């Protein structure tokens, strides 16, 4: 369906909840869909060595990241019988409580939508060159590492 169209993944700053509502609404005309699975990453106010995280500032090797996102999409569409898939990831500063990742997969059947969504999340975490600077309330920082 929208498999081949190159997609812009990065958005500047936090992903607003309305974007999610709009994405969902845009799929209500696709009556071959029976299930949507959505994953949202939200910035946690972690305490590290007594200091609280207040935001994460994301940067990326953007050209490579868009290319890897595209490869992940291609692989997902060949592995899973999904009708659509959308990914958005923040760049720049995202405050605690705000959303930095939005993965949205749709299929006729629930298990396929859910598995594909998980696949995207794991692949993004493992393989996309995105970097995160955890900014503390006292304006010091440390670099985030995915676990």
């Amino acid at each position: 369906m929208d498999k081949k169209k190159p997609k812009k993944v990065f958005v500047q700053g936090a992903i607003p909840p309305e974007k999610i509502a709009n994405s969902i609404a845009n799929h209500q005309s696709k009556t071959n869909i029976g299930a949507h699975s959505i994953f949202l990453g939200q910035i946690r106010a972690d305490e590290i060595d007594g200091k609280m995280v207040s935001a994460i500032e994301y940067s990326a090797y953007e050209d490579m990241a868009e290319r890897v996102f595209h490869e992940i999409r291609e692989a997902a569409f060949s592995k899973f019988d999904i009708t659509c898939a959308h990914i958005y990831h923040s760049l720049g500063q995202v405050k605690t409580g705000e959303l930095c990742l939005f993965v949205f997969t749709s299929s006729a059947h629930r298990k396929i939508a859910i598995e594909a969504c998980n696949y995207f999340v794991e692949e993004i975490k493992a393989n996309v060159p995105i970097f995160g600077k955890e900014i503390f309330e006292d304006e010091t920082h440390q670099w985030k590492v995915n676990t």
Partner: protein
Amino acid sequence: MKVTLKYFGVIAESAGKSEEVLELEQGLSLRELKDQQIKTYQIQDAGSVQIAVNQNLNNEVELKEGDEVAFLPPFAGG
């Protein structure tokens, strides 16, 4: 040969720059280039640094004129 080096995240912070163009002697291996830059900029936790040549993590390549070599710290997306 000229190659463009790109630095990201904590590595860019250590290097004090995000990009530079170096004139390398012909035949320098990727491994040698990596070691050299890690030493030059005293990049910490060198074992976690991944190198992408022309956006590709497969490092079994010989460097050539015009290559883009990226120094990538651990990924933190999601």
